[in-house]
């Protein structure tokens, strides 16, 4: 493939890493493009050439971005880019690397030799509303009051009941999350809490740990799970690039 033909095309960015020498990673990028490094003073951008500057967040494109990060992770912990960042060309990337060198170095120091693990707790019950009715007397009493008669409850009554459930759901989440973080703190360098995706979820955490501590982290998850009964389930995954611990917005 001639590089000349691609001269005016975009460079898709996957990650920023510490590197002193140019290197290629094979044809594992967007649409099978070659992934390589643009190095500027010991800081490098992991990129591939893409034919235009718009990219859709389709499954295969997201998978390619993820696959490149996984490949880099085999050797070094990268600072992952968010999906869909495309530069005009090599010069623009060199400028970004030079202008933000200190920020990148600071981040390298934070995540070097580390990986991110995900940990999620969910209610393991067939119906979350029935579970709350059976465990929360306040919500049960409100239900009986509003839905006990023959008439459909008013809009206000429904809103009140819905708010009450929401409040309790969040209060429980906070309590359980704090309980788990207190235990996991001993097993992690850093923990970030993410928003829950649905009512069934209790907590969603991202944990930064040493690469070699994955077995230990697992023990921490089991230790946390011992404090919960079988109405809850714990799920963990990883290792990931440290997505939740690299948060840089570069404004041009």
């Amino acid at each position, binding site marked *: 493939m001639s590089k000349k033909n691609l001269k005016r095309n975009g460079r898709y960015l996957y990650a920023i890493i510490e590197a002193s020498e140019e290197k290629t990673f094979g044809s594992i990028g967007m649409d099978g493009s070659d992934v390589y490094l643009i190095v500027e003073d010991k800081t490098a951008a992991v990129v591939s050439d893409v034919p235009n500057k718009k990219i859709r967040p389709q499954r295969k494109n997201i998978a390619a971005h993820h696959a490149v990060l996984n490949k880099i992770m085999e050797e070094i912990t990268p600072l992952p880019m968010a999906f869909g960042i495309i530069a005009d060309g090599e010069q623009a990337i060199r400028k970004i690397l030079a202008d933000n060198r200190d920020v990148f170095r600071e981040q390298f120091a934070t995540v070097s030799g580390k990986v991110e693990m995900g940990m999620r707790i969910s209610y393991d019950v067939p119906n979350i509303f029935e579970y709350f009715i059976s465990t929360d007397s306040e919500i049960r009493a409100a239900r009986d009051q509003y839905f006990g008669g023959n008439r459909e409850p008013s809009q206000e009554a429904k809103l009140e009941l819905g708010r009450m459930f929401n409040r309790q759901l969040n209060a429980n989440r906070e309590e359980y999350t704090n309980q788990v973080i207190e235990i996991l703190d001993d097993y992690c360098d850093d923990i970030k809490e993410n928003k829950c995706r649905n009512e069934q979820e209790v907590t969603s955490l991202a944990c930064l740990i040493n690469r070699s501590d994955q077995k230990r982290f697992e023990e921490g*998850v089991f230790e946390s799970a011992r404090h919960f009964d079988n109405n809850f389930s714990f799920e963990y995954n990883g290792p990931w690039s440290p997505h939740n611990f690299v948060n840089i917005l570069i404004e041009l």
Partner: protein
Amino acid sequence: MAKVQKTTDSSSLAEVVDRILDKGIVVDAWAKISLVGIELISIEARVVIASVETYLKYAEAIGLTAAAAAPA
């Protein structure tokens, strides 16, 4: 004790989407031109925002537990 399960990252697109679409380094001017059709995939990862609609949905669901518990 709660059940503990390890999931491999490839098994969950939502986990990947959560991380790759929403986190990491962003270059503002470059991101805007590249993200076309972001709503296509991010819907499933969207966080539930509590709202009037949500409260009413909760109330209806709680109401159904009353119907289920009522004597036949």
